[in-house]
Each structure stands twice: as C-alpha cells, then as structure tokens.
C-alpha cells in the first residue's frame, strides 16, 4: 500500500507572524492538513484565495518550513527541495535574460547535468510543449501561454516523480487557459507523473483531476474530497455532463459555507 503513495501530508500546520502598525500577531494559515496522493494520480486543490494553497504547495516543495506535521514524498520525509519534485510557478518565474532553451535547461544546470546533455534534454522538453521553434526567444518575446509552456518544460526536463503546480494557468486568458489544460492532460497521459495542481477554478479542477480536495476555513484545511469519475481521456463535452455539473454544484456549496 505505502509504495503506491507518492505524497503523504499529515497534520500539517503553519502560521505566519504579521506585523500591522507595529503590533505583531500570529496568523494561522494551515491547520491540520492531511491527505495522500497515489503514484500517477492527478490531484487538484481548490479553495478561495488566501486559504493557504500556495503555503501548502511551498511546504511540499520544501521551500517553506512548517510548524507541525509531516510531509513525505516517495516515502522520504521532506526537509528541503528535492530532485524528485519540480515546481511550476504561477508567474512562470523565467529568467528574463535567458532564452527559452536556457530557461528550460536551467533546472538541469542547477542539478549538475553537463552542457550537451542538458541542451539535448531541454530541446526535447521544448518540443513536448510545442515550442521547438522558439528555443532562442527571450521570455518577453513570448505570450503568457508560451511562457508557461517554458515553465512546464523546465519542470518536465528534470524528469521529476511529482509535479507541483501553483495556479499555473491563473494569469492566462480563458481561451489560452483551456488549451493549456488540454495540453497538460495530453502530456500527463504520456508519462503519468504524480501531479499536485493548485487552482481557484472549480471547473479546471474537475476537468483535470482524478481527485479534487477542497480547502477552506481559517486556518485552512481540507474540508471535502471529491472524485470526478469521468472517463479519460477527458473531453470538453464532459463539462456539461450530469456528473460534472452536480459535482461542481457540490463544491460551490462547500465553498459557500
């Protein structure tokens, strides 16, 4: 059983100290967050903004120290960033002075992969996200959607077991966002990474995921778990199916209280 679990989070708690007008106060952000993600499972977390989604993802990424609880990835306790995890950031986090190819190769470079090898793997990753013609372009020469493709290619190029995505399509327009969702599923169907996908869009979560965790409350915790049993590969027509709409309404109900 435990070998099938890729990510195990239990009893996670995190507070920040906030200073307002010279007075320091403790703000609990995460309180007792517990969930598991099976290997090759696509799990989304939805919740209103400010409920601690980014804090949760940064904790799993090893970028944020937690106050209580444990995080395990591939059965090992998380104490910092690790090679088996890769993050896709909301605002892309691309080096503005580096080409698409260099940006994709950056993660490999940091992990000590030799120049020829990392360029080869970066090219392959760029091709996978449909950007083979834009290897030399700088980020400012790319559209928002293309920039996030670079961000996704960078994460894929290091071949992680777990992909951590923090509202990756949050700053994209609706049309681009939908095509990026389809493209992400296409990539995911190919090599079935374990995905933890953060979003504030209920529809996006349902369309993409095997399981949707709804976060809420103060401090934030998982208040509901839903399993959209929609057949894969997913299609847009499923969005108007009874199963989809009833689950969407249920999530909205949960979020409303």
């Amino acid at each position, binding site marked *: 059983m435990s070998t099938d679990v890729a990510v195990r989070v239990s009893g996670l708690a995190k507070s920040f100290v906030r200073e307002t007008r010279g007075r320091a106060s403790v703000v609990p952000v995460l309180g007792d967050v517990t969930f598991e993600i099976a290997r090759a499972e696509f799990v989304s977390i939805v919740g209103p903004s400010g409920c601690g989604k980014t804090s949760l993802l940064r904790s799993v990424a090893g970028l944020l120290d937690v106050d209580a609880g444990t995080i395990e990835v591939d059965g090992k306790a998380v104490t910092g*960033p690790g090679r088996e995890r890769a993050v896709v*950031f909301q605002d892309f986090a691309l080096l*503005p*002075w*580096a080409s698409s190819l260099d940006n994709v190769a950056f993660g490999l470079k*940091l992990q000590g992969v030799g120049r020829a090898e990392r360029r080869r793997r970066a090219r392959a990753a760029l091709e996978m996200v449909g950007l083979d013609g834009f290897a030399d372009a700088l980020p400012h020469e790319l559209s928002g959607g293309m920039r996030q493709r670079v961000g996704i290619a960078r994460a894929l190029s290091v071949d992680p077991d777990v992909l951590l995505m923090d509202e990756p399509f949050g700053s994209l327009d609706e049309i681009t966002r939908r095509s990026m969702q389809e493209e992400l599923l296409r990539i995911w169907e190919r090599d079935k990474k374990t995905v933890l996908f953060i979003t504030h869009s209920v529809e996006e979560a349902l369309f993409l995921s095997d399981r949707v965790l709804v976060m809420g409350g103060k401090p934030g915790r998982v208040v509901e778990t839903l399993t959209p049993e929609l057949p894969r590969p997913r299609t847009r027509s499923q969005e108007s199916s009874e199963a989809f709409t009833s689950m969407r309404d249920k999530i909205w109900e949960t979020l409303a209280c």
Partner: protein
Amino acid sequence: MLTAAGSAIETGVAQPALLAKWRRRRRVERTAAVVLPLGVGAVCALLWQMGAAARTGGSVLLPTFTDFVGAVVRVLASVRFWHALWTSESALLLGFAIAVAAGIPLGLYVGRHRTVDGLVSGYLDIAVVTPTAVFMPLVIVVLGPTFWARVAVIAIFGLPFVVVPTRTGSATVPGALVSMTRSYCGSSGAVWREVVLPASVPAIFNGLRQGLAHALTGMVIIELTFLAVGIGRLIQDAQAKFDAASVFAVTFLIVAQGVAMMALLQRAQDGLSGQWRARS
C-alpha cells in the same frame, strides 16, 4: 495540440514592402542621430565665432571658435598635457577602481540582507546628500598633499554612487526567481551566481556610470583647489596667463574624456548582456 502560432514574418503577404518601409525608417533614424548633433554643433560654432569676433575682433576673455580649435590641437600636441593627463588619470583610475571594488560587493550584499541594510543605509543616505567636497580638507590633513590623498578623494566621491544603485538592484531581484532556483536544489551560491548577479547587471552599470561621474568631479575639484597638479594645474596656469583658448581647450578635453569613458561603459554593458544571452 495547439500549434505555437506561426510568426507574422512567415505569413505576411505584403512583407517585402513592409520590410522596405521599416528599413527606410531605420535609415532615416540612424542618419538623423548623426546629422542632428553635428548640425547643432556647427550652428553653435558659427554663432560662437561670430559673437566672439564681433567683440572688438577677438576679446581676451572669449576666444573665437577657430582660436579654440587651434588651442585644442596645440594642447593635444604638447607633452605637458599628456603628462598632466597621466598624473590626473592615474589617480582617477585607482580611486574609481577602489570605489568599484568596494562598492559593488557592498551594494550587492547590503541589498540582500535586511539587518546589514539597516546598519549601512543610514550612512549611505548621509553620504549621498552631503556635498562630498567637505571631506577634502580632512583627507588632506590625514594623508598630506599626496597622490594617495587624491586617490582617496576620488574614491570617496565615487563610492556612495556605486553602492546605492547596486543595492537597489540586488534588493529588487524577484523573489520568485530565488524560490525557483532553490526549488531545483540550487545552492545559495547558485542563487547569487545565476540569479542575483545577472539580474543586477543593469543596476550595477547604472552605479558605475554615476560613480564615474562623481569620481571625475572629485578629481577635478581637488586639483583645482587643494592640490594643484595634473589637469587642474594646467587649467590654473593657463588661467593665470589669460590664455582663455587653452582653458576652453583643456575643459573641452576633460568633458570629451568623460563622455568617452561613459561610452566605454555602455559598450562593456552591451557586450556583457550579449554574452549572457549566448550562454546556457
């Protein structure tokens, strides 16, 4: 799959015409960039010549433009000028080098550490608003009327103006890039090398330009006041002899030299940015 939009240049029907128009515009812009300043300069020279000549056929105080050009040539041909230039310049190069060698690491470090920033920024603010010239007597008292006194004055003039922009640069490196680097197991050394330093390059060059301008000011001021050597001495001697044309000529050459140094810095920055683009 969504294709990554073909570029307009491949698909445009009227592309040769469009390109031709674009090239024509560029050519006009480039020509104007050369012709306009030259034209303005020529008009000024003409007005200068006429104005000076009208004053009783070449006043003592205002040389004509042709006198001035003659003086520039004469100054450039004299051994004394080059000797004086070396005297001034060696102090400038050393003083500015010290300001840069101390200022860039200091600025980068201060910008990344809030506690150190709190400690240093007060002094920096004072240094930036204080007329640095008030420190010159102090330096002379401590170091005597020496080469090193000039070096120190130049370094003191330049340092705060190297530090302040550099510190702003490293302080404003996007946190997301640092997080991203750490998420790929980048060490703090890698964060410095791969993110903080390249992201701060424009700010560093801004600091170099401002620092150089102030270092140059320091060099001229101390030679015109406390330590009459080098270029400052040259100007003072010409002034004492009422050789206005030479005063103009040397002043012009100092300005030209400052402009040339700034251009060199720009070239260095462009070259560095190009290199950064090329690596992977």
